[in-house]
């Protein structure tokens, strides 16, 4: 019957701390880091001219027809 609020508050304070830190860590290593890696690998050997020629050949650029 004693320290009802103190016990509950301690439990929930610790829990809130862990949950917020955990979700932040989860997001960083689940979403943010993979995204950064994806962009790094994409642009490492990216040739924009080659990309442009491919799009032009496919005929999707109105101002740069395939001919």
């Amino acid at each position, binding site marked *: 019957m004693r320290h009802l609020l103190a016990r509950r508050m301690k439990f929930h304070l610790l829990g809130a701390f862990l949950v917020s830190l955990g979700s932040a860590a989860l997001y960083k290593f689940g979403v943010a880091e993979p995204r950064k890696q*994806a*962009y790094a690998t*994409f642009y490492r050997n990216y040739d924009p001219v080659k990309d442009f020629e491919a799009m032009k050949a496919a005929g*999707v650029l109105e101002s740069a027809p395939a001919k």
Partner: protein
Amino acid sequence: MLASRVFSLVGRRSISTSLCLRAHGHAGVVKAEDYTLPAYVDRRDVPLPEVAFVRELSAQQKALKEKEKASWSALSVDEKVELYRMKFNETYAEMNKGTNEWKTVLGGVFFFLGFTGLILIWQKHFMYGPIPHTFSDEWLAAQTKRMLDMRVNPVEGISAQWDFDNNEWKK
């Protein structure tokens, strides 16, 4: 003159409540309603309610209350339990015990979700017209090819899943 007419209106009180009716028969003293008296309540945050649980004690219980005034070590375990039950309705354990209500709630929720699903099936079959032609397989294939040609979302999206050298989806 107007003020005195207002005063006569205020002075005349109509007997509308039953309390007032009873008061007129009992020399002006109103019997206290149950809800106005201190009440017993089983609550976690009220360890000692305002009144004991059992109000009218039987002769046996009255005798036990007399015995309680003497030394408590003279009381047997059963008598102590009886005294407890006279004072309190439920123990803390009984009070805090959970119910099975959540099963009913969950069951009801699923039932009505299922019923809604039936309604949606009926609607799709009997009510809605055909979906647009832009959802046909040929259109979707041409649409996807155009998206890949344009290199839509090449880093993490659809063009990242396509192998442009071998003209197939990446494994």
